[in-house]
């Protein structure tokens, strides 16, 4: 009987842990368990027999670490073939003609692929190739690629197994991180998208977390995968007892979890680390001969994924935006860079499109991308480290696509396959091999049909062919092509019709929006008008410019209107604004009341306006000092008040102080007066020697300067002696000192020591990240300022006291 026949008939029982069973049977744990396949076959045979007696339908070879990269650590890389073949032979001996299947275990290489680690894809491929071939020669019934921690490595393992053996393949991932992700960050939902269309027949979960967490892993896996599921967990989280690991779940307790796996719809159930033949016996007793439970219906989506995020289109998904900006067409700088094989601009566009909330990114490198497959693949490889978004591989050369798909850690989208026979006969097998999704482009050898009917004929033919080539209809989206309206005025209505037709057939759709407006002025307006029309007919996604803020907002509004933004949650969150002065009201104030307008300009930190209104008041004949006293100072005081109440935060305080400075400068220049003459107190500011931090000190200086103090700022890394001497020379009233680190704080003491003898009347206020009020007292400073506003208060208080004397 074959694996698939078995699977249809019943739930299969897999064996339990190998390592833990070996440890029970040996005096000394070997460094490499697989060596026992040659040297102590009887031990492995005994483990297999114990599991067969317990009722296992499948036994797993003792080859988890028998790959070249792992064995190299022990200088045993020449024994890969030997160890794997021997392992299968031992398993065969245990089977002895019974109806039991042998799973050839293939574990992770133990290395991470560049740039996360130090091995490259080809090395990983040949490593898996070698082991898979050996297991087939030995006579395994199927390959179990298990405990995988990285989806890229797992994808390569599947391909190596499929391209070099004729065995069925099961892939099982281990979500070992606390948040239920693989070591390289993929969650079960992402993995289920990636491996729903790869060539492994079975998908699964093993090892890693406590079995109670598997319920969620299984449910998430079923969201996007219909493949038979293999599940085998550890007997709980191990505790260390002396030198040994103790797995807390006994056979009965573990079997209770196995029952949950079964009820959720698992097809192959067994145990991983810490489970024993007793555990398997319990499971076997409970599940023997039962049929798999029917799973819940999956929602149909078009889907793709990067290493750690998924993209769904259609169904209940919101409208999806595929960023168009990585395309040299019409971008001089980008196209020069692509020609020179540089990546800076490309990376920049990836980043800013993600920041602008695109859902995926189209990668089109123009002719260069077609001509140089290596460069195209390099770009794709780099981009997946820059952005979390899935990529549309927009390239006409199958070689470029193949190379890029090989390196892609996820499920990419081939953009696009058209109705020309040669085209789809090359690209569908490529998509199948790499488990990628495809864009079906509504054109063929004869060009782009004028009518909706013509377009849909091509799309329907392509779907039929895709299915014939083994692709799933979940991996297909149709691009119904919008042409430039200035050249073909009928194009938009036919495209809209085609969207409607595709919608009624349940085919998800997309368009390259920017084509529409080519050659016309004010292109954004046309996009903004067309997009809602298309969405109302059922368009699910578009390749468009995510940096067009207005257009992006329109997509959000459309989601809210069409009910794809559940509870309008996203819309409300995005567009609710904190109350502000209404724009109309503002304008009125500006025209009628320049004094109030200046006050508001300071409050809002508008430098240019502050200057403009100040000059208007000066022109009107207002006294410069009066502007300072009756408008600017109260405005900044109000800002200070808002800051203290935390309604304003630091950037706003600074912007206001800067606006104030701009206004003061304008007064000084226009009226040829020195506003500092009105300032009563002089302060020397400095960051102490050895300390290079001066942002905090600059802010305090700025705020003080604009709050009626005469400030002389000596900058950073200033010698104690210089600070005191300047203060004496300038007849300063205060010294303000800043230090950020514990090592430079001590310098403050130096300043105070010198000052105490040379200028006892000058007061010192200190501040900075590391400085505390108690430190300030300890070194004899007069005050400690927590921040700029606090410093003002302290200085005013100190100078008030001084006046009393």
């Amino acid at each position, binding site marked *: 009987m074959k694996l698939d026949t078995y699977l249809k008939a019943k739930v299969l029982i897999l064996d339990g842990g190998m390592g833990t069973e070996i440890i029970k049977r040996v005096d000394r744990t070997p460094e490499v368990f697989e060596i026992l396949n040659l040297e102590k076959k009887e031990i492995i045979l005994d483990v297999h027999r114990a599991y067969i007696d317990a009722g296992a339908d499948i036994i797993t070879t003792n080859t988890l670490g028998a790959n070249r990269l792992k064995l190299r650590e022990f200088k045993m890389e020449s024994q890969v073939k030997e160890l794997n073949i021997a392992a299968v032979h031992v398993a065969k001996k245990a089977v002895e003609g019974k109806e039991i299947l042998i799973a050839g275990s293939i574990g992770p290489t133990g290395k991470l692929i560049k740039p996360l680690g130090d091995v490259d894809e080809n090395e990983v491929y040949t490593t898996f190739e070698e082991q898979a071939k050996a297991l087939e020669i030995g006579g395994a019934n199927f390959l179990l690629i298990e405990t995988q921690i990285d989806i890229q490595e797992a994808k390569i393992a599947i391909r190596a197994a499929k391209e070099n053996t004729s065995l069925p393949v099961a892939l099982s991932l281990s979500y070992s991180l606390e948040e239920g992700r693989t070591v390289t960050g993929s969650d079960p939902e992402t993995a289920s998208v990636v491996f729903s269309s790869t060539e492994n027949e079975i998908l699964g979960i093993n090892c890693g977390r406590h079995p109670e967490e598997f319920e969620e892993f299984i449910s998430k896996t079923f969201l996007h995968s219909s493949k038979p599921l293999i599940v085998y967990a550890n007997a709980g989280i191990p505790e260390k007892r002396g030198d040994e690991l103790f797995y807390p779940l006994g056979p009965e307790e573990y079997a209770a979890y196995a029952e949950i796996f079964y009820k959720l719809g698992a097809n192959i159930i067994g145990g991983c680390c810490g489970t024993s033949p007793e555990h398997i016996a319990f499971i076997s007793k409970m599940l023997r001969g039962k049929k798999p439970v029917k799973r819940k219906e999956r929602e149909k989506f078009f889907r793709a994924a990067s290493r750690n995020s998924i993209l769904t289109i259609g169904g209940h998904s919101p409208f999806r935006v595929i960023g168009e900006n990585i395309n040299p067409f019409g971008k001089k700088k980008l196209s020069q860079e692509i020609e020179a094989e540089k990546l800076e601009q490309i990376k*920049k566009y990836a980043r800013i499109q993600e920041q602008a909330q695109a859902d995926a990114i189209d990668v089109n490198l123009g002719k260069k991308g077609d001509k140089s497959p290596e460069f195209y693949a390099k770009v794709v490889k780099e981009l997946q480290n820059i952005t979390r978004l899935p990529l549309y591989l927009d390239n006409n050369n199958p070689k470029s696509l193949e190379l890029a798909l090989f390196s892609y850690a996820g499920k990419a989208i081939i953009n696009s396959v058209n109705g020309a026979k040669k085209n789809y006969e090359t690209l569908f097998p490529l998509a199948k091999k790499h488990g990628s999704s495809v864009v079906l482009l509504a054109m063929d050898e004869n060009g782009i049909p004028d009518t909706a009917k013509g377009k849909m004929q091509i799309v329907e033919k392509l779907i039929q062919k895709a299915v014939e080539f083994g692709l799933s209809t979940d991996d297909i989206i149709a691009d119904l092509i919008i042409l430039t309206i200035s050249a073909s005025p009928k194009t938009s209505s036919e495209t809209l019709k085609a969207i409607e037709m595709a919608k009624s057939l349940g085919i998800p759709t997309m368009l390259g929006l920017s084509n529409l407006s080519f050659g016309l002025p004010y292109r954004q307006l046309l996009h903004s008008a067309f997009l809602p029309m298309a969405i109302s007919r059922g368009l699910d996604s578009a390749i468009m410019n995510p940096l067009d803020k207005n257009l992006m907002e329109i997509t959000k509004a459309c989601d809210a209107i069409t009910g794809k933004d559940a509870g309008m949650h996203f819309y409300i969150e995005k567009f609710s604004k904190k109350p*502000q002065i209404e724009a109309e009201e503002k304008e009125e104030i500006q025209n009628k009341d320049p004094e109030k307008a200046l006050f508001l300009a300071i409050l809002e930190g508008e430098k240019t306006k502050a200057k403009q209104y100040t000059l208007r008041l000066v022109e009107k004949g207002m006294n410069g000092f009066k502007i300072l006293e009756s408008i600017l100072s109260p405005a900044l005081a109000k800002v200070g008040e808002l800051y203290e109440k935390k309604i304003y*935060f630091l950037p706003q305080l600074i912007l206001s102080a800067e606006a104030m400075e701009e206004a003061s400068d304008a007064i000084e220049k226009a009226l040829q007066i020195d506003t500092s003459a009105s300032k009563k107190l002089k302060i020397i500011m400095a960051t102490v020697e050895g300390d290079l931090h001066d942002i905090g000190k600059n802010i305090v200086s700025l705020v003080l300067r604009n709050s009626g103090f005469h400030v002389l700022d000596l900058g950073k890394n200033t010698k104690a002696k210089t600070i005191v001497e300047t203060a004496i020379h300038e007849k300063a009233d205060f010294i303000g000192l800043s230090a950020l680190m514990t090592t430079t704080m001590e310098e403050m003491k130096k300043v105070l020591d010198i000052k105490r003898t040379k200028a006892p009347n000058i007061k010192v206020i200190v501040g900075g990240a590391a400085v505390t009020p108690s430190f300030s007292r300890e070194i004899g400073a007069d005050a400690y300022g927590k921040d700029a506003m606090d410093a003002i208060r302290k200085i005013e208080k100190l100078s008030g006291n001084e006046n009393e004397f």
Partner: protein
Amino acid sequence: MFFDKVITEKEIRFTINRKAVYSLLGYRKGKTALTEKIINLIDEAYEKASELIVPQGIYVIRRIKEKGDEIKFANSKIVLKGKSMQVLLEESLAAIFFGVTIGPGIEEKISQETEKKNFDKALVFDALGSEAVEAAANFLNNHLIAQARQAKKFLTTRFSPGYGDLALDFQKEIYEELSLHDLEVEINDKSILYPQKTITGIIGVEE
């Protein structure tokens, strides 16, 4: 995980957490009223920052040779004293010494903006730089955790000079141990690093 090999890590990837930048700047949810001007100010700097940041990390793993009042390492002059290190490395068999920097780009930008008296921009770049180097350190830390998992080891939390009773001056020793000079990081006699947006620290490796 290799012992005693100084490894430079140039593939450090992260996105700066916008929320953290806001809160570093003093934003309080539910209290602070944001204006479009401020949001734009931060957005523009955010975009620019990604061009200015060139993150790099460097680390070395040293086997612990001696434990007691002083912790000593094989092939290293470093000696750790004090309670903080005793606690951190209590169950460790080795320690990772690391440094992470985002390069001088942000600091040069801050100086330029300061010179132009754009203190608002200088402040925002400073906050972005702080968050970036923190994120870079997190990335390196996670990268090390992933490697440790492969080797069936566990890592302690990371600890930097200036915390607990580990003096800031200890930065000098890490600086020399890793030869941070090669990453174009400088240190002065007060143990202050340039670029300032540089983090050094220690992580314990447990079985």
